[in-house]
């Protein structure tokens, strides 16, 4: 049996088992089973990827046919899996980081009862299965299947606390907003089906050049609509911050490290189509850049630490999308990889803080926690340094690469770079603000401070491993002028072999170094400002609802996206439907039906009153008149 099948179906099997019988197993066994399945899946994934690496670079593609899904005479599509360098990288991320997060969840969720505990691990395992389906897909139907299933598992996990209305609302919102994107994805799939008569990547992507320019643009934009929904790009980003209603490991796994990067993965997978359409690529790049900048500005004023990381995730996803949008697929994917490490780390560390403070998430009530939780503090600083782009961290290299490509890449534009740069500045500020508010300065809520404690080792270990990973993963993609050892670029090279030569050389070493100096300086200055503002006794946090300026109000309310959608889509649509129901369905359509019935009844009533009135003699008269009439007719016509 192919090891890929184990990678894919083992988490599914444990998910089903845990959901059905996990409550009876007890907590330890349920969690052990879940963690073990992901660890085994990781081992098999690593084995598959090593097997792949042993192949010559040009033939690094393994296709596994599981069974036939649909067979419509001239068209067939199977449940096919494709292992190539791109999906190989993704399955390692999903199972590897997934395992660490599972491990963390063992400690984080321990207060739940056995039933809820098993349900949680069943859902998370199911998510791992769905995400693996998505990345391993070898055709558009399977990728769509995975695409929807990650949506389902995300829905289930966001709404994990089933008794809470806000959790159910957030899950529903996430699913529906994603469905809006899926609508585009589905249309793109149908267009591809029309154009190629097949949905297999192998039949579509290498021959993408056969698409007319208009068609390529349409397919590209529709695909990106799906990608924007899943990767929370504006204007479809509104679900992600609300998704923080789920347990923190979920935020780390699904809403930071893996699922939300599916959009970036999709664009990279279908780059052959996007490359045909400058318009589609432009839309991708500008959406990414605007999202990166605007979400970063929102993150600067939020006080809920998970919400800050949520907007930060939206912003960082914007960078990845910007990266693939300017044709720097490798750079975008590298940022995906580094972000998966450091953002998972940041969320888990935030969860650790939350755990220590019994659910407190408001940074205005924290402060000085480094004394109480040195490990969490240290790892979170590492993560924040990566996020902010402190020199020599992984985030520094990956973001640097994207911005360089925005300025000098094949589809570069100065505006894109500027938005990206401003976003990076905001990122440095809000990262510093969060770290300094939470861990430094003086405790602002002494009661909470007194009860704070370091998390147990099952939660600490993943933090340490992720912190080490966050720093080390940067080595895989050092800038080109430093070294010729480029494992990440080389690994992905076969996937992007169809692109024109990588235009790395078009940037001079002086420019690269100058930009690096600029970023370093910016990070240093803004970090210093944040330190000054947020370590003092009072700190510079305004209270809830207290807006210091119109700009602050705009950012505090996240540019009023939710309000606008609530008005246009929810209230207007429901109002329209209600109108339609009352006046058209009940009024016009059913009214016509009942009207016909009422008319028949009225006619009957009329006849009953006038003709069929119960007077026997009158009936006799009708009878006689009728007889005379017949007799008369017979006399006239009998000849």
């Amino acid at each position, binding site marked *: 049996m192919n090891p890929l099948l184990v990678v894919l179906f083992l988490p599914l099997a444990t998910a089903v088992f845990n959901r059905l019988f996990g409550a009876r197993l007890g907590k330890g066994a349920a969690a052990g089973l879940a963690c073990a399945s992901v660890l085994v899946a990781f081992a098999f994934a690593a084995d598959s990827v090593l097997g792949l690496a042993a192949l010559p670079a040009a033939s690094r593609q393994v296709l596994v046919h599981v069974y036939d899904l649909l067979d419509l*005479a001239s068209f067939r599509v199977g449940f096919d899996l494709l292992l190539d360098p791109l999906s190989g990288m993704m399955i390692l991320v999903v199972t590897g980081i997934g395992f660490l997060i599972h491990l963390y969840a063992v400690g984080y969720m321990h207060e739940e009862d056995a039933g809820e505990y098993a349900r949680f691990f069943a859902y998370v395992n199911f998510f791992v299965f769905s995400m693996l389906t998505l990345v391993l897909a070898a055709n558009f139907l399977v990728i769509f299947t995975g695409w*929807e299933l990650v949506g389902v598992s995300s829905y289930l996990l966001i709404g994990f606390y089933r008794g809470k209305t806000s959790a159910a609302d957030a899950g*529903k919102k996430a699913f529906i907003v994603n469905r809006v994107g899926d609508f585009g994805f589905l249309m793109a799939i*149908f267009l591809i089906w029309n154009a190629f008569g097949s949905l297999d990547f192998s039949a579509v992507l290498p021959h993408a050049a056969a698409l007319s320019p208009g068609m390529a643009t349409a397919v590209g934009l529709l695909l990106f609509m799906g990608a924007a929904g899943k990767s929370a790009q504006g204007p479809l980003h509104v679900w992600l911050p609300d998704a923080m209603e789920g347990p923190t490991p979920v935020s780390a796994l699904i809403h930071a490290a893996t699922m939300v990067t599916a959009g970036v993965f999709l664009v990279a997978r279908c780059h052959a189509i996007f490359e045909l359409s400058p318009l589609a690529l432009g839309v991708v790049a500008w959406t990414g850049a605007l999202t990166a900048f605007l979400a970063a500005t929102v993150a600067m004023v939020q006080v809920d630490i998970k919400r800050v990381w949520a907007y930060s995730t939206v912003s960082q996803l914007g960078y990845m999308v910007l990266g693939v949008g300017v044709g720097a697929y490798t750079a975008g994917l590298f940022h995906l990889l580094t972000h998966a490490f450091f953002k998972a780390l940041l969320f888990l560390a935030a969860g650790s803080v939350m755990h220590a403070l019994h659910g407190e998430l408001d940074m205005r009530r924290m402060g000085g926690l480094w004394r109480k939780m040195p490990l969490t503090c240290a790892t979170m600083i590492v993560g924040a340094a990566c996020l902010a782009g402190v020199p020599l961290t992984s985030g520094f290299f990956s973001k640097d690469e994207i911005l360089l490509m925005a300025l000098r890449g094949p589809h570069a534009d100065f505006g894109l770079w500027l938005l990206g740069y401003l976003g990076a500045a905001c990122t440095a500020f809000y990262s510093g603000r969060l770290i300094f508010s939470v861990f430094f300065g003086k405790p602002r809520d002494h009661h909470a401070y007194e009860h704070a404690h370091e998390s147990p080792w099952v939660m600490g270990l993943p933090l340490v491993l992720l912190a080490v990973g966050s720093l080390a993963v940067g080595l895989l993609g050092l800038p080109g002028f430093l070294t010729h050892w480029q494992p990440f670029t080389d690994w992905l090279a076969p996937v992007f072999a169809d692109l024109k030569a990588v235009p790395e050389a078009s940037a001079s070493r002086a420019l690269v170094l100058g930009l690096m100096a600029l970023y370093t300086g910016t990070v240093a200055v803004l970090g210093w400002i944040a330190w000054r503002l947020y370590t003092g006794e009072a700190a510079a946090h305004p209270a809830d609802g207290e807006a210091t300026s119109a700009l602050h109000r705009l950012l505090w309310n996240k540019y009023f996206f939710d309000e606008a959608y609530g008005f246009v889509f929810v209230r207007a649509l429901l109002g329209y439907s209600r109108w339609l129901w009352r006046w058209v369905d009940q009024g016009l359509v059913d009214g016509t039906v009942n009207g016909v019935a009422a008319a028949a009844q009225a006619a009957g009533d009329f006849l009953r009153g006038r003709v069929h009135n119960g007077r026997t003699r009158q009936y006799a008269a009708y009878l006689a008149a009728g007889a005379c009439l017949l007799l008369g007719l017979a006399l006239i016509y009998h000849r």
Partner: protein
Amino acid sequence: MLSLIIFSPLAFALALAFGPWGGHKSARRAALVLSLAQAAFTAWVLWGGDFSAAGFQLQERLAWLPALGAGYHVGLDGISRWLVALNALLLPIAVLSSWNAVERYPRAHYALMFALQSMVYGVFLSLDMLQFYIFWEASLLPMYFLIGVWGGERRLYATVKFVLYTLAGSLLMLLALVWMAFLARTQTGHLSFDFLDWSSLAIPAGQQMWLFAAFFLAFAIKVPLFPFHTWLPDAHVEAPTAGSILLAGVLLKLGTYALMRFNLGLFPEAAHAFQKPVLIICLIGAVYGALMVLVQRDFKKMVAYSSVSHMGLCVLGLFSFTLAGEQGALLTMLNHGISTGALFLIVGMFYERTHTRDLSVYGGAVLKMPVLGLLFLPVALSSMGVPGTNGFVNEFLCLRGAFEAFPWAGAVAALTVILGAAYMLRLTQKVMYGPLGGAKMEALTDITTRERASLGVLVALIFALGIFPEGILSNTQPSVQAVLARLTPGASTPAAPAPAAGGEARP
């Protein structure tokens, strides 16, 4: 064999009505045993057919009214096979759903359910059109009594509306049937109501239009297509649970089945002429139905309007005249029967416990009913069309078919993907999630073994058909391709009732 399938439930109905099962406990036990036996027998017969080619199998003929050219003629092909199976499957489920709900006249209740099953078999298997018409009309009567006797408060209004509306529609069809019989006489020399004779007639295009319209009206009311749908929510809301399951599960399929078999099979030119108007009606119906679901406050009405939306999609696939669309439509008939049957089953479970369908009372049910919560989810996902469940496959194929025919139609219809998620998640949340809704919710008890069994079977099918759709699609394909072959321009002067196209399709 097929005659046994049709008439054994009728015999069972008589046995139940006059047999020695007076109390509701013995009646329900007898009904369950008989329905399971019937299902087993039907499954055994269906298993035996060879569906690798188009054409009717296991045909049986008897001269009945030779002077009128009407006979008794039954036959089974890949299209009717699964609908017959669905009909066999849903009866035991419906019997289980009325286990505790029906205490008044239990024998009559179960007898009527069997009679209904018999009539529905008759419709799916008839190849003689007069016989078809008789079964078609006769299927109304058991449902009339099921709603009228065991229904809710406004049951008389609902049941009279349902029966009169459907009857009114089928009168024109009767006229069209007689017309066709005379047309057969002018062309072949003798009156005939036989479907196989009719399929070899050359019907002038002008007449096709009228005949098509007459058939279409009858079937569209049954489906029901917008704007003929308003009887459905009323009937569903008033019907007892078993009635709702059978109504949504099989009775609606009579309409779509007949559209596929007769409107497309007999009048290909008219079908092409009417394609766009019908597609537009379906699009309106699918989107409009979904919008209606969004604003309902009644649990059952939500499910009923979602049927309007789904059946709109089904007919959309049917009138795309593409293989994907036809297969999708056929699968929709089946899958809608399963998932909506399950939804009505769930509504019934709640109603038995709370005695209300008002959604504002509901909330947080999953906290009290974890097992139902587990089984509810796949049903909701299937209704939304999430991959891995059966609902996805048919929705995907129907949309694909529509898109292949007219991209705008596929695009508009795909809006239901978003709206479907919106209304199903709203329903799920209203009922299952959030804090407990109040005293009625506090008193909820989780589902019993009997309820688990009936819902569990449907959920298992939801997954099985969602994961391995080819199990069904591969043996409906030849028959569906035969229908399509008649629809393709150029082949409209039919040669044989079962074109050979089906046989060649599979290498």
